[in-house]
């Protein structure tokens, strides 16, 4: 298929960017979106032009590195996939595809389609961990009974790969689905109870400090999340913060 791409080009974080049009030809419908971008970049390199910078790593939907806002949606029009898993069969011959970086004040553009998502790392550092003795006397995890329901819910929350699609999609650039998932995965397990009070308070405080917007419950994040993280995690985080506030 032959496509027209409208891509955000930005030299660096300080330079103003703009949309630039490119043509790509003979794209197979079996290619992933990133492979199509590779074809474009080869074309640009052969023509002596600067290739389009974009984030990628595992290319199997696990690492959370690939981003891109494709035709007005985070990770493109397919559901439950990252950009690396988005196939070109989702598009038609002759289509014009708009490709932009994830946009949020807390995700500044580094170059072209690459954004700085270290704000997520700082939120994790603020409380997204548990204290476990790993000096060789670690207790067998199976020795602690956990209900199947709680284990499943915690696992569902833990599938968040921190890609930032929730922030990119949210009309308010809110990070509450990400933080809700990270708070939930520990809040549901006995191992997470030791730091439960400080965790939610510190992670929410860091989230606010990073300049993310406020959740207004549109539910767009849940729809666009490649891992299907549920809004229930935001409700749980809200309950956890209320509980933590009363406890302290």
């Amino acid at each position, binding site marked *: 298929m032959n496509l027209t791409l*409208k891509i*955000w080009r930005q030299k660096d974080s300080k330079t103003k*960017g703009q*949309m630039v049009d490119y043509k790509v030809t003979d794209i197979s419908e079996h290619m992933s979106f990133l492979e199509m971008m590779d074809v474009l970049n080869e074309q640009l390199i052969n023509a002596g032009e600067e290739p389009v910078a974009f984030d990628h790593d595992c290319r199997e939907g696990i690492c959370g590195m690939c981003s891109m*806002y494709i*035709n*007005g*949606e985070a990770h493109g*029009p397919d559901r439950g996939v990252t950009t690396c898993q988005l196939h070109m069969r989702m598009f038609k011959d002759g289509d014009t595809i*708009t490709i*932009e970086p994830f*946009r*949020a*004040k*807390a995700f500044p*553009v580094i170059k072209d389609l690459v954004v700085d998502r270290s704000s997520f790392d700082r939120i994790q550092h603020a409380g997204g961990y548990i204290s476990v003795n790993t000096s060789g006397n670690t207790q067998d995890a199976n020795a602690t009974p956990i209900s199947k329901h709680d284990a499943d819910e915690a696992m569902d929350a833990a599938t968040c790969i921190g890609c930032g699609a929730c922030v990119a*999609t949210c*009309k*308010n*650039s*809110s990070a*509450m689905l990400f933080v809700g998932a990270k708070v939930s995965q520990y809040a549901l397990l006995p191992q997470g109870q030791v730091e439960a009070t400080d965790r939610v*308070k510190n992670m*929410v*405080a860091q*989230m*606010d400090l990073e*300049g*993310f*917007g*406020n*959740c*207004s*419950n*549109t*539910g*767009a994040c849940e*729809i*666009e999340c490649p891992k299907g993280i*549920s*809004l*229930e995690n*935001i*409700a*749980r*985080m*809200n*309950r956890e*913060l*209320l509980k933590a*506030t009363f406890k302290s």
Partner: protein
Amino acid sequence: MSKFFTSSIGRKYAMALSALFLMFFLLQHFAINILSVFSPNAFNEASHFMGTFWVIQYVMQPILIFGVMYHFIMGFILEIKNRNARVVKYAKNNGSANSSWMSRNMIYSGLAILGFLVLHFIDFWIPEINTKYIQGDMSGLLVDGEGYRYYEELTHKFVNPLRVGAYVLAFVFLSLHLMHGFSSAFQSSGVSSMRKEKLQAFGKAYAIIIPLGFILIALFHHFNH
């Protein structure tokens, strides 16, 4: 606790609580207004009670005014903050692919409701305060002293078709606001999804029935005057 209420989640709770209070007030307001369709006397009695009972006037009314002001002012503050959280806008954004129009445009439906409230205050609340607390007439009686004035005042306001039109339009926006606002208030309050489906169905019914009821009351008085 002060940190809680200045945090993003604390503000969500406060917005949700003020919304729940306003939705309860709306239900109570509707229950009294619907009396005007079936029994002018009952409407007059209920209105006089609400307008003169000290708990309503000096406790509930200030809470209501605070609730309304808080909901609007915080709504605007959050909207500004949210807009500032994305400096460069998307060239192409397909919002309808993942969210409802109502949820994305709460600020506009809210502004329409604010416009209606200004009209409503000029129509009813300011004359009421003037009669009772400036002129000192707490009797609730008509000028000629023949019965209560509340039903007369209500029906008189719905003579002008332009005002009725404005009321109908405002309640359409209120319905759109509640379509998202009702379930959103419970989600913000941390209500579990297990209870959410029934609440969402109840919320949709509330968002349609109550505004539609207000519209029908206005039309009833307009065509029966």
